[in-house]
């Protein structure tokens, strides 16, 4: 076997990708080690995130030095993440399904590229610009017309912004799938006397169902990890579970950003370690969701091949 320097060098370059991923996981695990030991399972179930008294002498618990009174629990942020992402999906799915159907079937092929370009462009707007729009337009709107307390920042604002951001993911996935439905299937449905809408709803949609679910799960993965837009409009609630659409919330991702300053003030470094554990939890959640999306996508492919 001969050594091929060119192949070897591009192989090395491509190995950077797995190496970077492994480094991310490894260092997050190593760094959060002490925090994992200190927090145990309470980390997931506690609703209280308390940095403790950063100016008092640190106390030692099980050989780990922590600020006195410190307690790290992220159930509030998990709840905030799940609530905002779920509501975002509930808003985004009907909108994007309707938009994709309209683009695929009701629009002339001449203007379809322009409209689908517009839908795709939503996905490239930076999330911080969505957040800016949320603060400037959406939050005042909610506080004037919807919120009983007059507070616009909160779960609803975060969910709407998230919904806008994930709509193009679902819509373009579904649009691609609808455009690939074989002509024979459409025409046989028409030949049976179905109206155009019945052809779409009863003949085409069942064929692309798996792809649609895959797109929704992919969008969910994006929504769970979204940071800036949520941080800017969510109101940053901590230590209290959201009880209405207008409660201030924090998601896991937005909480990590908002804690930078206080974490740096901790002399024992415990809060930086605990935040590392938070990031690890977020990584695991999004990994699971994205893996599910991938499985669904490959499943859809198998079904199509079998036919």
């Amino acid at each position, binding site marked *: 076997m001969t050594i091929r320097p060119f192949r070897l060098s591009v192989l090395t*370059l*491509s190995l950077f990708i797995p190496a970077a991923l492994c480094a*991310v996981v490894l260092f997050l695990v190593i760094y959060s080690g002490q925090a994992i030991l200190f927090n145990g399972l309470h980390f997931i179930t506690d609703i209280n995130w308390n940095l403790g008294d950063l100016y008092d002498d640190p106390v030692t618990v099980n050989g780990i030095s922590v600020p006195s009174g410190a307690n790290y629990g992220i159930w509030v942020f998990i709840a905030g993440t799940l609530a905002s992402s779920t509501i975002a999906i509930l808003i985004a799915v009907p909108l994007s399904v309707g938009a994709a159907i309209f683009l695929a079937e009701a629009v002339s092929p001449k203007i379809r590229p322009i409209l689908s370009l517009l839908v795709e462009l939503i996905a*490239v707007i930076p999330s911080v*610009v969505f957040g800016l*729009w949320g603060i400037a337009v959406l939050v005042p709107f909610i506080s004037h017309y919807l919120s009983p307390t007059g507070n616009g920042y909160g779960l609803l604002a975060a969910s709407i912004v998230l919904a806008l951001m994930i709509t193009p993911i679902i819509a373009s996935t579904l649009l691609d799938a609808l455009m690939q439905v074989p002509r024979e299937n459409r025409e046989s449905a028409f030949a049976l006397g179905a109206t155009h809408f019945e052809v779409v709803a009863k003949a085409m949609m069942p064929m692309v169902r798996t792809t649609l679910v895959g797109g929704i799960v992919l969008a969910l993965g994006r929504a769970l990890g979204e940071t800036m837009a949520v941080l800017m409009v969510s109101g940053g609630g901590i230590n209290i579970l959201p009880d209405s659409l207008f409660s201030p919330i924090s998601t896991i991702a937005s909480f990590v950003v908002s804690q930078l300053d206080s974490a740096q003030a901790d002399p024992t470094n415990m809060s930086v370690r605990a935040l590392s554990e938070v990031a690890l939890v977020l990584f695991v959640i999004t990994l699971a969701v994205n893996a599910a999306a991938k499985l669904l996508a490959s499943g859809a492919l198998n079904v199509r091949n079998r036919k």
Partner: protein
Amino acid sequence: MSATANSPPQRSTQEIRRVITGNIGWVACGIALLLVIAPLIDIVGVVAYNGFSAFSLKLFTTSTKGAGGGLLNAIEGTILITICAMVIAVPIGVGAGIHLSEYGKNKLGSTIRFLSDVLTGTPSIVLGYFSYIVFVIALGWGFSLLAAAITIAILIVPYLARITELALQQVPNTMREAGFALGASEPTVVFKIILPGAASGVVTGALLALAISVGETAPLIYTAGWTNFVWHGRFTHEPVSYLTYVIWTFIDQPDAQSHALAFAAALLVMLVVLAINVGVRLLVRRTKLV
């Protein structure tokens, strides 16, 4: 068109109901499309209106001072971070794309592809926090240009690899075979035949990666820091400013001047991102026709 179609058949109530249901369905779908596109137009409109009215010469010639001043340091910082990130990421991403496309039809290739997808799906804040504990704390670089650039590079390498791979796959196999038949070596075939043939695709990938790095915020908060001054030429131990930071912090200030700066920064970022994405899509569509 049939001969017996002279008198239209009587429609039963059931048929009428089906037609009406269909029409309601189409109207609902049209409204859905409107509701999807309207926010985009509103976002672009609001940002453009507020941003353009904040434009002045001072914006591009002076640095931020507290929550006022210009945007010189932020513009410079964003350009620096983007250039450094691209310098790190393009060789790795394009190299990885070459490997995946030309030699990646095996277990190793699909494993790398899968892990690359995992990295793409990882929230950017997780990458930012990783860089924070490794580069900023453990290596002691502090908030710095290099930490920020490496973080953005990790973020965009998977995109570059994927798009390069797709672009190289578009080059027909006969071109490779013709090259090898002339006695060309592997690197010659890749660099002289395949890469030039796929150049527009690779450039597309690089431009999209550039757009991503200009618009990113979350990973920079934990790596770049913030400063009111322009760059002094140090890669570590010196924080850098960036445009997206201005957007998310200045909009929370109470005064109109900082709001204007936030919108101006948003407009600059949005112009770059939209120009690249619209341009790339028009270009790709045209080359496909040719």
